């Protein structure tokens, strides 16, 4: 049923630290790799080596420049995947019931054998989290690696989403955001974790940790000019040239 559950037992999701992400796209590659070889239809690429390559991805890394009123511009790498919203508009628009939100852990999934590929869920998502697979013509989205996180055949350290496992800087954390004592919830509370497009009313579960303030100041003092006034020969030259 495409109605949303009134309450989910857990709210599994990701916390993405924009202060740490270096924009290496390793999470994109790991996601594509795992989700092509495992649950659901593989993530296709069309014309991969041609002039117009196009393919489906569940996770993409944008880069934005933030120019403060004063001070230097900052580059922020911005990974984006499904936010597993509490009020997921993609779920309620689905005419077939293929899109659903799980009661037990809040993960938003697509039952691919029920998907008619109408694309309405992708239209309803403000975040661009859903992409139609160009070969299978069914809607693909982040599953939060549902086939990893409960998979007892994997070593314990691998029982997290592929993007989290692979991130070389630890910019991605996975956990239960409905539990205020979980590591992810604590980091959200400490760092002022934020929702994307809160005005859309989707109540995203995934949170983003903003870049730390004054980050650039660690190095900035070292870049200050150390000699304001010339001394010695240069001071003499300076004066002499002024007099000419």
């Amino acid at each position: 049923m495409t109605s949303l559950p009134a309450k989910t037992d857990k709210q599994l999701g990701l916390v993405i630290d924009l202060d740490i992400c270096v924009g290496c796209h390793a999470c994109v590659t790991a996601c594509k790799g795992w989700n092509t070889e495992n649950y659901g239809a593989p993530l296709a690429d069309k014309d991969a080596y041609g002039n117009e390559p196009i393919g489906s991805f569940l996770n993409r890394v944008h880069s934005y420049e933030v120019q403060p009123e004063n001070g230097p511009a900052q580059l922020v790498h911005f990974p984006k995947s499904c936010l597993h919203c509490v009020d997921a508009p993609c779920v309620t628009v689905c005419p077939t019931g293929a899109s659903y939100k799980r009661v037990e852990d809040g993960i938003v999934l697509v039952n691919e054998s029920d998907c008619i590929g109408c694309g309405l869920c992708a239209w309803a998502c403000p975040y661009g989290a859903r992409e139609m697979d160009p070969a299978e013509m069914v809607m693909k989205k982040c599953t939060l690696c549902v086939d990893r996180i409960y998979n007892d055949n994997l070593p314990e350290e691998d029982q997290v989403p592929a993007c989290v496992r692979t991130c070389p800087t630890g910019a991605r954390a996975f956990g239960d955001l409905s539990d205020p004592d979980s590591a992810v919830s604590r980091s959200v509370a400490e760092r002022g974790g934020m929702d994307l497009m809160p005005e859309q009313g989707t109540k995203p579960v995934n949170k983003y940790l903003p870049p730390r303030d004054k980050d650039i100041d660690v190095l900035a003092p070292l870049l200050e000019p150390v000699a304001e006034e010339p001394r010695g020969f240069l001071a003499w030259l300076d004066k002499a040239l002024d007099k000419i």
Partner: protein
Amino acid sequence: MHPARSIILFTTLSGLGFGLLACLGLGLPPVTGWTAFAFFAIAYALASGGLIASTFHLGHPERALKAFTQWRSSWLSREGWLACITLALGAVYAFPIVFYGTRFALLGWLVAVCAVATVLATSMIYAQLKTVPRWHHWSTPLLFFLYAAAGGLLLAGQISVAPILLAAAGAVQIVAWVIGDGRFAGSGSTLGTATGLGDRGTVRAFEPPHTGPNYLTKEMVHVVARKHAARLRVIGIVLASGLPALALVALPFSHGLAVLAILAHIAGILCIRWLFFAEAEHVVSLYYGRRAV
């Protein structure tokens, strides 16, 4: 949004078809026998032709029957149900009219109500989307209704009432365009809210996640040919509302003139529906720094 031909055809044809069916349900025109058959045939050809066109938009049309399951939550599912109910009731209503010359008025009114509900359900598929601020507005269902009513009356040959509806549709269309142009800015969504970085400074898309296009940019960040939008608006409204209304009011009526008025109206609606999609901006375009001007 990408103006897919299948969807433009679907909304245009099914709107006209259900509009005509609603008129026939109200007994406009009060035809019986084979004349009635011709009218019903046109209504059914348009309505079902539109519905068939809509399935070309699907990735898996063979699973289309599954779309009837989620009527409790999904407007697309409701639209499917209402369309089928209307067509079924319409057939029951048409049968005695065509073969026995008997019209059951109560059933006819029910057909008309269902036909209008179908058109409104179609409009709600678009109007429900908060992600497309231009569509997420009362003018969307109102316009779908007015165009279906005007087109239906035109097809039903109601030359006294049709010009009023045509003019009303044109007037509301102008209001919808004027309001619609400010809807995205008024939605409050910016690249700042989309990234959560807006309070730190001016956010600019520095580098996209990929060098080529993707499903999102093709489907929802359509910016092609918007430069002709102003001209197309004039062409659309003149063809859809202006010319047919003027022809019916000012010129002596003939069947040839009526056919021309209908053809102009259909061409105008196709143009306006193309704009309905092409001009609609999705908030996801913010992430790609491609908010069109």
